C-alpha cells in the first residue's frame, strides 16, 4: 500500500516538475528582452559567452590538432591523406563542434547559472525582487536565457573554425599534407546547408536545453548550501546526458535518411 502511495506521489511530483519547468520556459521565451533590458542581456552575454571564449578556443584548437594527427596516421597508409581536410571539417561541423561546445558550455556556464540563481534564491534576493514588484522571470531569468541561446551557437561556430585551423596547422604545416588539397577537397565535400547550418541548428537546440535545465535547477533548488551544490551537479549531469541523447536523435533526423 505504502509503495503504491509512494509511486503515485513520485509520478505526480514528476509531472508537476515538468509542468513548472515548461511554465518557466514559456515565461522566459515570451519575456523577450526589450530595449530596456538589452543591457542586462549584453552583460549576461559577457558572462556566459565572452568568459567561455578561452576554454572554447583552446579546446577547439587541440581537438582539431588531435584529429588531424590521428586522421593522418590512418589515412596516409591508404595514400588518402588528401581526405584529411574533409575528415576534420565534417566531424567538427557535424558532431564535435556542437556537442563538445555544449558539454563545455554546460560545465562552464550552465553550472555557474544554476549556482548564481540558487544563491539568489537562498539569500532571498528573488523574493525581494518580487516584493518590489519586479518580475524575477523578466529581470533575472530571461536575460540569462536569451544570452545563453545566442552565445552557444556562436561559440560552436568559433569552435569549429578554430578546430579546422588547428587541423591545418598540424596536417599541412607539420605533417606536410598539401595545403591546396586540404582546402579544395574540403570545399567540394562540405555543404553549406547540409553541414554548417545543421550544425548550427544542433547547437541552438543544445543551447535551449542546457540553459533551460540550468535555470530550472537554479530556480527550484532547495535554498541551502547543500541544495545549491546538488542542483549544480544535477545541472551538469542532466545537461550532458540530454545533449548526448538529443545529439543521436538530431543526427538520425538530419543525416540518417538521405
Amino acid at each position, binding site marked *: 500500500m505504502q509503495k503504491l502511495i509512494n509511486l503515485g506521489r513520485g509520478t505526480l511530483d514528476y509531472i508537476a516538475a515538468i509542468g513548472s519547468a515548461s511554465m518557466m520556459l514559456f515565461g522566459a521565451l515570451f519575456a523577450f528582452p526589450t530595449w530596456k533590458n538589452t*543591457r542586462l542581456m*549584453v*552583460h549576461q*552575454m*559577457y558572462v556566459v*559567452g*565572452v568568459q567561455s*571564449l578561452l576554454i572554447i578556443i583552446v579546446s577547439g584548437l587541440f581537438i582539431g590538432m588531435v584529429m588531424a594527427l590521428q586522421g593522418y596516421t590512418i589515412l596516409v597508409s*591508404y*595514400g*588518402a591523406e*588528401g*581526405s584529411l581536410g574533409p575528415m576534420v*571539417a565534417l566531424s567538427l*561541423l557535424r558532431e564535435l563542434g556542437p556537442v563538445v561546445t555544449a558539454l563545455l558550455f554546460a560545465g562552464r556556464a550552465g553550472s555557474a547559472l544554476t549556482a548564481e540563481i540558487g544563491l539568489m534564491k537562498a539569500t532571498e534576493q528573488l523574493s525581494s525582487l518580487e516584493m518590489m514588484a519586479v518580475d524575477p522571470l523578466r529581470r533575472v531569468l530571461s536575460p540569462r536565457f536569451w544570452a545563453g541561446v545566442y*552565445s552557444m551557437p*556562436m*561559440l560552436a*561556430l*568559433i569552435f*569549429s*573554425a*578554430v578546430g*579546422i*585551423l588547428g587541423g591545418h596547422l598540424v596536417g599541412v604545416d607539420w605533417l606536410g599534407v598539401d595545403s591546396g588539397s586540404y*582546402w579544395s577537397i*574540403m*570545399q*567540394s565535400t*562540405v*555543404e*553549406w546547408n547540409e*553541414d*554548417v547550418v545543421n550544425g548550427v541548428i544542433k547547437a541552438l537546440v543544445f543551447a535551449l536545453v542546457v540553459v533551460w535545465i540550468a535555470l530550472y535547477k537554479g530556480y527550484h533548488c532547495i535554498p541551502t548550501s547543500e541544495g545549491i551544490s546538488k542542483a549544480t551537479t544535477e545541472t551538469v549531469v542532466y545537461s550532458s546526458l540530454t545533449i548526448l541523447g538529443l545529439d543521436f536523435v538530431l543526427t538520425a533526423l538530419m543525416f540518417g535518411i538521405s
Partner: protein
Amino acid sequence: MTSRKTELLVGIFVALAIAATLLLALRVANQGMAGGGETYTLTARFDNIGGLKARSSVKVGGVIVGRVSRIYLNERDLVPMVEMEISTEYANTFPDTSSLSILTSGLLGEQFIGLKPGFIFPEDLEMIEEDKVCETSPYENCPYLTEGEEIMDTKSALVLEDLIGQFLFNQGNE
C-alpha cells in the same frame, strides 16, 4: 565604465563569431557555386550510375561546370536517369554531340560525371550567326546543349564485379 568594457568585449565576441561564419562559408563550404548562380538543366540516361549521388559534380577536363541535381529511374525502360544543373556561365558552350561518362577521382575518391565536348559542323556555326537559333526560346535547331535537352552519348560507371565476370568469361573461352 565597466559596462562600456563589457559591451566592447561582447562586440568582439560577436565579431569573432561572424568571422568564424565567414571562414566556414567561404573557405570551408565554398558558397560561390552552390549558392545562387543561374543554371540550366540537362538530362542523360545511363545503363548504370555506380556510386553517383545527387550533388556529385559535373566536370569538363577537371573544371567543375555543374552538379547532379536528381537521380531517378525511368519507369518505362527501367534505366537510371540523371538530371544535371549546369551553370549558365557555360550556356551555348557544349555541342550537342558531347558525351558523358561516370569517372572516379583517385582510387578511393568520389564519383563524378565527366563531360567530353563534341564537335560542331562549320555550316552549323554559320547558321548560328545568321538565324540566331540559340538566342530565343525554342532552341530546336541549336547545335548546342540547351535547357532540358537529353545527352544521348553516355558511358556507364565501371562496376568491378562486371569487369571480373567479363575477364573470367574471356579466360574460359581461351
